[in-house]
């Protein structure tokens, strides 16, 4: 089973034996990988019926729930790591979910598409909202309502009092060294609440 590239990197950031909460866990691939490769124990939260079914099939712990209603089910500091991969940009209550992540977990990890990518800028220069393989939606049907750039995210993290403990800006699954704010398609951050 090949793991999505951002999930592979996220997995590398998670210490062996961690208790992990994966928000918007999809088919449970990250949790299944962490269980097998890093001896982690984890729970996923997922709203989609099909994905929940996949989790059940692969014996991944899963709770069917809507993240927008928060993480009330989970107590303070219950997890070592709370993951939110490629979902932040689709959340209505962006600040709320980030605060909840550091409440229920010691560390948070998020990944999101970089809206500042040069192709997006080009698209906008040509008068259109960007449509890319990573975000293949038209402006009127996109679930991605809170798009941002790495810098934008860091400003919000600072406002929320988070300490950023890890950052990776990627294109094609590889770290981008030169002009990452323009060339990275995906941003990953690890943080702790203060």
């Amino acid at each position, binding site marked *: 089973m090949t793991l999505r590239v951002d999930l592979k990197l996220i997995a590398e950031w998670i210490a062996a034996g961690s208790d992990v909460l994966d928000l918007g866990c999809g088919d449970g691939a990250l949790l299944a990988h962490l269980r097998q490769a890093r001896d982690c124990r984890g729970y996923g939260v997922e709203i989609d*019926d099909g994905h929940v079914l996949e989790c*059940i*099939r692969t*014996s*991944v*712990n*899963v*709770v069917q729930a809507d993240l927008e209603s928060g993480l009330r*089910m989970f107590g303070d500091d*219950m997890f070592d790591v709370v993951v939110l991969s490629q979902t932040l940009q689709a959340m209505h209550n962006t600040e709320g979910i980030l605060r909840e992540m550091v409440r229920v977990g010691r560390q948070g990890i998020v990944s999101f598409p970089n809206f500042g990518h040069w192709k997006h800028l080009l698209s906008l220069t040509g008068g259109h909202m960007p449509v890319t393989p990573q975000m293949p939606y038209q402006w009127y049907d996109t679930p991605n309502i809170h798009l941002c750039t790495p810098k934008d995210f860091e400003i919000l993290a600072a406002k929320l009092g988070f300490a950023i403990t890890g950052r990776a800006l990627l294109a094609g699954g590889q770290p981008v060294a030169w002009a990452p704010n323009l060339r990275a398609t995906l941003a990953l951050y690890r943080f702790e609440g203060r």
Partner: protein
Amino acid sequence: MTAPGSVGIVTPQTMRFEEPLPLASGASLAAYELMYETYGELNAARSNAVLVCHALNASHHVAGHCEGQDKSLGWWDNMVGPGKPVDTNRFFVIGVNNPGSCFGSTGPMSVDPASGRRYGSRFPVVTVEDWVNAQARLADRLGIERFAAVMGGSLGGMQALSWTLQQPRRIAHCVAIATTPKLSAQNIAFNDVARTAIQNDPDFHGGDFYEYGVKPRRGLGVARMIGHITYLSGADMAEKFGRLLRHKDYGYSFGIEFEVESYLRYQGDKFADYFDANTYLLITRALDYFDPARAHGGDLVRALAGAEAKFFLASFTTDWRFAPARSREIVEALIANRRDVAYAEIDAPHGHDAFLMDDPRYHRAVAAYFDRIGREVGA
């Protein structure tokens, strides 16, 4: 000829227990009998047994038909059978009628060996925990050391949950659907109205109506009408009946004018034909009393700390009797205890009754979970 997916014609069996069953109340049940049915084959390793616990008005007859009775389809036949979510080609499934019920196991209609008269009002109050103890004895006699799963919906789910606390080593998986860790004040209130209707029926005779050759049919019917309302969603009733009238126009009378009235009366009458009033009191009381957190200062997390099973829970969005939030309380406490759990919240229109319905999303989830159980236990 057996219909595909059906366990076919089934024959109930009786197991007699001579040793009295001590009860939570301090009383005990003298020698008693349990009715049960089984479907599928127990494998050589005895690892594929599944116990199905019934709710308020059901019985040991979970699946299939009884010989010569066309209308005798088991109450969870859409769930249990060859190729069904609980696949009897893989699992050995047991349905058992709980003591206190009225479908053949020892209950208020049975003759009390001490007096030679029917138990009636003298049948002891039984709890979910008492039922689990009785079920465990049946498992002993059937040679089942450990269940692959104990499953149930509603009150049946309470029994499955209680198994994980009373017999943590004897249950690998708990499958609890549309259930709750305890009744709310509103739930108890509905039960109280139902019981009051029965107790106030002049034909009830304090529970000893058998001796008078009568039955508190009106009270039992009203009890069923109330219960039935709580099993359906408002939207479901609106869609089924709306404000449909039985006749063209209002009759300006207090007879049955609306379709929903007709439906409820029919349900009440039908129920009064086959159900026992004392059993209704007993079972609703068992519902009221169930509260495993009570012995732990109301702390469900502590109550579930002793559970070793893995869990599957499901709830239905339109169930207002045991709403999804009640299942989430259990899930929350399980996660706090780091227990394995899968929880599906099914978007279904049929209220509490949805757990008995043939909903593809619901059945796919249960089937997937039982497939996993099968892989784990070698079924």
